[in-house]
């Protein structure tokens, strides 16, 4: 197989497919290369497709046509110890109107749908093709070789949307080694449960969905658990830092089992049937570990560009990915018009990205990466909180303390004054 096109996109995930759609709609000859048997076959995430303005703009009726599960109406943050849970629930009627704030989706369904929207606009989708190496011409990137279906694809611009382990960016010399301290791994179990049971159990009606984040049930590792409601299933899993997992001496599925066995979680998943198990890395190193994102003839988007941030409350990636894909596509359209595929021409992408919410948000929460590497957030504070709540509610004939004194005593007992001050500064710098 040998092909020539204006733009070659490696990876039919959300970033690659939306870039393909934008380029095809502009009349460019675009080829979307996917290693799975269908788009989405290799893709997993926790479960939440965030509201993404560029998606709403390019496909205004997507929420009526895309394979979506539920829109997220209820957000829960739960601090857990093995025997207790302290939860904060936020339900918002403003999350009840389109454009909804987020949807639970299945990636094999959603990614496949989105890639086919690009095909409808004229993009060429090549499945069963793993990009193996870059082709060069006059010193610049000018295509890829693929294996599976063997062949050479040549073009003017390559957009690397090949995910967190971007071998394309590595081969282009745009990034150094992948490091455990800037990666997280997500594992997930999909559990089937009847729709009515989910609605009753989570207090939901119609298409409403719940998003529960768990802090403190990750076997002492830095990370968090999650539970999302789909229409007839629950996505339950956790994300842990890779360096933390490495030193923990624990297997991730055993720790997930502890979460599933937690007294509160057990009630939520009771009677559910395991349907599918999946895992994937997440680029959690923040802005400081981003690779270079453009060179002569090539741009890097989405997870491949390390576009992801978490501040302990938000974890965003898919919306950043799709937005970066569209920005790269806009730059590619301008480069095609000018007939200039040099790094200087493609640097417009970096400029647009810097001005977008993506880099602004990643900069705003650049200190959150350090905070999220603080073990006590995950190990100690959930327990302190649970101890305070326990003393607050327990009626046992022992004289009570005033609230602030109680909280201070519990925190000092576990962390010490020095630790409290250090953590306070760290959390303050990250979030406040």
């Amino acid at each position, binding site marked *: 197989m040998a092909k020539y096109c204006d733009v070659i996109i490696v990876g039919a995930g959300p970033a690659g497919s939306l870039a393909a759609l934008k380029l095809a709609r502009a009349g460019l000859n675009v080829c979307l290369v996917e290693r799975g048997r269908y788009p989405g076959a290799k893709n997993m995430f926790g479960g939440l497709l965030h509201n993404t303005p560029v998606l709403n703009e390019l496909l205004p009726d997507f929420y009526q046509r895309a394979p979506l599960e539920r829109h997220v109406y209820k957000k829960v943050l739960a601090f857990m110890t093995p025997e207790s849970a302290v939860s904060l629930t936020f339900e918002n009627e403003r999350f009840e109107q389109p454009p909804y704030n987020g949807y639970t989706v299945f990636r*094999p369904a959603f990614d496949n749908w989105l890639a086919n929207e690009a095909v409808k606009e004229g993009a060429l989708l090549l499945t069963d093709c793993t990009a193996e190496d870059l082709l060069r011409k006059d010193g610049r990137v000018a295509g890829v070789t*693929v294996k599976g279906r063997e062949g050479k694809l040549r073009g003017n611009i390559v957009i690397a949307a090949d995910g967190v382990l971007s071998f394309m960016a590595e081969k282009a010399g745009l990034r150094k080694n992948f490091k455990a301290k800037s990666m997280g791994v997500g594992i997930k179990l999909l559990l089937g449960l009847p729709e009515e049971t989910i609605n009753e159990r989570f207090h939901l009606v119609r298409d409403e969905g719940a998003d529960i984040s768990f802090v403190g049930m990750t076997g002492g590792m830095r990370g968090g658990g999650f539970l999302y409601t789909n229409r007839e299933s629950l996505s339950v899993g956790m994300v842990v830092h*890779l360096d933390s997992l490495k030193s923990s001496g*624990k297997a991730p599925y055993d720790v997930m089992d502890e979460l599933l066995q937690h007294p509160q979680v057990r009630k939520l998943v009771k009677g559910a049937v*395991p349907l599918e198990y999946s895992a994937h890395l997440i680029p959690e190193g923040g802005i400081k570990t981003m690779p270079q994102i453009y060179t002569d003839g090539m741009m890097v988007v989405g997870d491949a560009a390390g576009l992801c941030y978490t501040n302990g409350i938000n974890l965003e990636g898919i919306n950043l990915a799709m937005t970066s894909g569209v920005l790269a596509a806009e730059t590619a359209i301008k480069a095609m018009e000018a007939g200039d595929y040099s790094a200087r021409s493609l640097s417009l992408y970096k400029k647009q990205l810097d001005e977008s919410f993506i880099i602004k948000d990643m900069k705003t929460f650049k200190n959150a990466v350090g905070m999220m590497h603080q073990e006590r957030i995950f190990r100690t504070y959930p327990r302190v909180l649970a101890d305070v709540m326990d003393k607050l509610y327990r009626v046992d004939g022992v004289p009570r303390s005033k609230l602030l004194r109680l909280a201070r005593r519990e925190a000092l007992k576990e962390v010490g004054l020095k630790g409290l001050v250090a953590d306070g500064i760290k959390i303050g710098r990250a979030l406040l």
Partner: protein
Amino acid sequence: MNIENLQQLTQFQIDEQPHIVVNKEICKTCDHRACVLSCPANCYTWDEATKLLSIVYETCLECGTCYVICDKGALDWSYPRGGYGVCFRLT
């Protein structure tokens, strides 16, 4: 979640060519062998008797954990050929 049930839960299109090859000599001298416990699909096994690390690449979820966690350069790691490997249906 019993990891032994992985093959019943998740679909794989198995290639006869392995996409991960371990250098068993390097693994013999590894001081952590973190791949064994960290792999979310339990693909790696260390046999203390024979001092050999073995991998079952057939049920690899292609998550990348081992590739990043191995700091000894013992893994020859690539994505499977197009069309092969894990094939998520829902997730």
